[in-house]
């Protein structure tokens, strides 16, 4: 460079993989012109565990737990896609009650996911309080997960042929501790005196007012709007070209939701609305997700009412996929054999291929399953919405400012468990 001249050159900046706004392990290499992005090259795969290959080496049922670990904030939705693919190839259908339970838990999962999203996205953009509020409600729903499956996150609750067990008839209560005591303890336990459905009734009656609280903090917040309105605008054509689904597509005004268009489980019987954006920017997608929480709340209430009125089996009486009860196992030779075969060898799935998709909170989560008739899948491919969304990063953030990249990563709702698989 000559002395006295003011030549400005682009420089390359590395973002992540260890950065709190990277939502896990995203490494982003950006070419910058001052504060403006010229090119963004996301490096993914730092969390690649080879889930698909592992699933090919195990009997079908043993991989359900891996599905929880893909998108680890919408666990049961991932299980749903995998289980649905197996059920299609087996030609079986879960009992009606199990389908309602799945619908209910898919929506509980959607709220869990969106709470995580609203908290962390607000935190990325400088609003700390929302995170604390969102995790308050997340905790209640985590308790529901724990009550039904024994695990707060990695539930392994859905099984081919139904769900692992029926809803518990009592909710565990909190004991006195330095963190929960006095009036506070009484208040949280007052919801937990009856069954799980009673708890969900109380929760869903209260939840819309909680959503109002988040909206109070953000929707008309000047700083929030400055950070999101007009940022990351995606046209409907662009969204389709880049294989976007879920809120990323609906935020751009395309009314496409698998729960309405290609209904599975019991969504055809549910009364709910699909929020659609107008401008396709980060703010519209924020509004869509907030409204989706309210709609999920509606669906949960409908499921709770049905489940209360209709007891019944939650698992098929099909010994090839469902284990016999412990009592039968002790008395019945056949039951013992079935139990042994199921837990050692598993079941064989007829040869064929299928693609099962569910409307996961982040978009279309699909499972392409190829079986050659064996007790292990021949090929499992998991179509993660975040993978398709993130690939459009370069196209969308070009010309944006560096700080907007953080808004964009937030609005993609990325979880690297599913992007990297």
């Amino acid at each position, binding site marked *: 460079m000559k002395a006295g001249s003011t030549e400005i050159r682009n420089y390359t900046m590395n973002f992540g993989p260890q950065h709190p706004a990277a939502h896990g392990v995203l490494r982003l290499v950006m070419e910058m012109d001052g504060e403006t992005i010229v090119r963004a090259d996301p490096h993914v795969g730092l969390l690649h565990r080879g889930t698909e290959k592992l699933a090919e*080496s195990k009997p079908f049922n043993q991989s359900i737990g891996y599905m929880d670990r893909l998108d680890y904030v919408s666990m049961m939705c991932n299980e749903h896609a995998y289980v649905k693919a197996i059920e299609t190839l087996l030609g079986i259908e879960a009992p009606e009650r199990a389908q309602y339970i799945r619908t209910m838990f898919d929506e509980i999962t959607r709220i869990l996911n969106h709470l995580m999203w609203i908290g962390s996205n607000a935190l990325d953009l400088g609003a700390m309080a929302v995170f604390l509020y969102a995790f308050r409600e997340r905790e209640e729903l985590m308790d529901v997960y724990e009550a039904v499956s024994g695990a707060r996150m990695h539930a392994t609750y859905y099984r081919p042929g139904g769900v692992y067990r029926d809803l518990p008839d009592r909710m565990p209560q909190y004991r006195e501790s330095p963190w929960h005591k006095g009036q506070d303890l009484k208040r949280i336990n007052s919801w937990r005196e009856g069954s799980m459905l009673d708890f969900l009734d109380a929760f869903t009656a209260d939840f819309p007012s909680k959503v109002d609280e988040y909206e109070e903090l953000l929707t008309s917040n000047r700083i929030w709007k400055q950070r999101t309105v007009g940022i990351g605008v995606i046209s409907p054509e662009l969204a389709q070209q880049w294989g976007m689904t879920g809120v990323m597509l609906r935020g751009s005004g395309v009314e496409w939701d698998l729960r309405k268009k290609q209904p599975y489980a019991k969504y055809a019987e549910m009364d709910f609305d699909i929020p659609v954006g107008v401008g396709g920017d980060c703010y519209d997608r924020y509004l869509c997700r907030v409204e989706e929480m309210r709609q999920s709340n509606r669906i949960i209430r409908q499921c709770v009412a049905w489940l209360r009125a209709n007891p019944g089996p939650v698992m098929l009486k099909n*010994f090839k996929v469902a284990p016999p009860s412990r009592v039968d196992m002790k008395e019945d030779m056949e039951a013992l054999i*079935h139990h042994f075969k199921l837990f050692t060898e598993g079941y064989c799935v007829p040869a064929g291929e299928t693609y099962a998709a569910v409307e996961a909170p982040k978009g279309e989560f699909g499972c392409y399953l190829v079986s*050659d008739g064996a007790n292990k899948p021949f090929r499992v491919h998991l179509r993660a919405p975040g993978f398709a969304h993130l690939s459009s990063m370069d196209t969308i953030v070009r010309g944006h400012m560096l700080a907007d990249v953080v808004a964009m990563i937030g609005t993609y709702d990325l979880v690297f468990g599913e992007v990297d698989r």
Partner: protein
Amino acid sequence: MSDTHPTSLAERLAARFGDTLDISTVRQETTAELAASDLLAVATALRDEPAFRFTELVDLCGIDYLGYGQTEWDTQTISSTGFSRGVEGQAMGRFDWAGRPREADQPRRFASVVHLLSIEGNCRLRLRVFCDDDSLPVVPSLTSVWPGVNWFEREAFDLYGILFDGHPDLRRILTDYGFVGHPFRKDFPLIGNVEVRYDPEQKRVIYEPVSIEPRVLVPRTIRDDADLMQARAEAADHWREN
């Protein structure tokens, strides 16, 4: 899934493309198999023509058909001493790199499978393209038709070594920087080739050959009762009270 057209998707495809596509519909899922040389023309037509309008490419993945339909444990034939109890074969997880299966008994190993979605027509279509040469699997890239396929093709290249002709940036995507091999191929060992640890003496992360042994807990087996008819009969016999 409700299709909004009067004729079925398979009929429309057959009418438009004739022998170019090998169409089958199983469980309301339509699959079309085609030659790699026809892929780009067919894909463009599927995206643009009003009868199809597959504006979204939802998914693309590679498949390695090596060992399709092979079992490790024969449960079909019986000899005078009863059923076989031995496990034979080299299915996934049983070999390391040195002992990987080498003879290719599969005529065409690699395929690229595409899932398309038409938002207008509310229908899906699966396309399958086999690669002609197993030692150098090549299919045309779809990035010019659906730009969103970019990363999916990078993934199929990374994991299966399928080359996408015309792809603008065919780099590895999921595996480590400097990774060797294509890990999802059926002849790539499940245990991998290298492991990583921090070496306190050299004060850096080092790569070493894997120290774990290949191990499989459940043999791979194919049984005829997979249609579950038998299961239903047994359920009727033994749990009459239900």
